[in-house]
């Protein structure tokens, strides 16, 4: 080996120093981005809360008018005021979705687990969505599950997951369609419960299976899209399922319908 092939220690040292400086710089950028992200989350949380209060006042005022407490309204006036109440309520629901997302994204989320019957929660969520589904002539059925053991999970959060999946199915299933919930077990000792929420809706292209779970993402994001919302429902569902050490995914056929699945450990160690 000739002298010229041997690495020059001084050059190596210089190169090492440069790499170290670059690594430091990268770390600084990461820290900076993290703190900006935290600020943005805090902002989202504050603004959502502050939007809620005047909206609540608007809705209450409109309800007082609608109920005729300040004098009887004619039917056109009542319809118009009902529009204010309904629009306001829709806004509140969207704000709540953002708040739930912000809370589930934070580091301080904790699960309040108890043993409960998942079929009971499914039936509750079905009841809550019955009116909305009936408007579109949709049926929501639970196909099985009467013999399931209790699950050990956070009841409120699981209810939220089911609410988002069923709400989503209602939104994207055309009039007269079907929505169903069914359960199966998998794993060597059937230790995992698989919950399926299926529909006969428009379906999702394979390329979009991942996208639908991403926050703020909607498959059709154009301003003229026919379905509006925060685009957070499925991202929240994923966060809440993952908090329970479960997984969530979708299988679908365009024009035929979608099946959303999520898993829960059946008998996780109790805290």
């Amino acid at each position, binding site marked *: 080996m000739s002298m010229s092939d041997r690495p020059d220690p001084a050059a190596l040292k210089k190169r090492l120093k440069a790499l170290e400086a670059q690594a430091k710089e990268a770390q600084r950028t990461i820290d900076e981005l993290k703190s900006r992200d935290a600020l943005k989350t805090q902002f989202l949380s504050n603004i959502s*809360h502050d939007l*809620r*209060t*005047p*909206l*609540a*006042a608007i*809705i*209450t*005022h409109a*309800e*007082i008018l609608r*109920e005729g*407490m*300040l004098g009887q309204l004619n039917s056109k006036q009542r319809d118009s005021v009902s529009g204010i109440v309904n629009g*306001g309520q829709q806004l*509140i629901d969207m704000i709540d979705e953002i*708040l739930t997302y912000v809370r589930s994204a934070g580091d301080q989320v904790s699960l*309040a687990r108890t043993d409960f019957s998942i079929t009971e929660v499914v039936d509750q969520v079905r009841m809550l969505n019955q009116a909305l589904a009936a408007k579109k002539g949709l049926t929501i059925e639970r196909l099985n599950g009467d013999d399931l053991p209790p699950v050990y999970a956070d*009841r*409120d959060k699981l209810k939220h997951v089911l609410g988002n999946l069923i709400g989503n199915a209602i939104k994207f299933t055309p009039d007269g369609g079907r929505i169903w919930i069914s359960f199966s077990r998998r794993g060597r000792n059937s230790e995992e419960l698989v919950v399926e929420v299926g529909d006969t809706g428009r379906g999702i292209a394979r390329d979009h299976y991942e996208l639908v779970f991403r926050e703020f993402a909607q498959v059709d994001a154009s301003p003229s899209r026919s379905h509006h919302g925060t685009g957070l429902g499925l991202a929240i569902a994923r966060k809440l399922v993952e908090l329970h050490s479960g997984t969530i995914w979708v299988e679908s056929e365009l024009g035929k319908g979608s099946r959303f699945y999520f898993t829960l450990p059946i008998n996780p160690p109790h805290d």
Partner: protein
Amino acid sequence: MRARILIVEDSQLVAEAFSILFTEAGYEVDTAATVAEAIDRATSEAVDLMLLDISLPDGNGLEVLEALRARDSLPRVTLAMTGHNDSNSRLKCIEAGCAEVLLKPVPIGELLRHIERLLP
């Protein structure tokens, strides 16, 4: 005699809406915007029903109940209002002695039904 309702709510907009509602429904209405004000209003004149917002600028709404219990001037009935509906905060309100925990915005039909039931 008309029943007296104390609205404890820091948003003037929301308090005004409830004031109109309860006045029209035939109740006597008083308002407070902070923990300190609520304690003052509830001790100076007996309250039949307190509609209590849980997040107030100078503290947690449940502190009002604590202070009033210590002064032996609890309202006959307290309804708590909260912005988020998780079982943990619901439980805390019930343990503190609230008859119901309502999620804001409370539909007025539901609110008036609760009040009629609790203030016979």
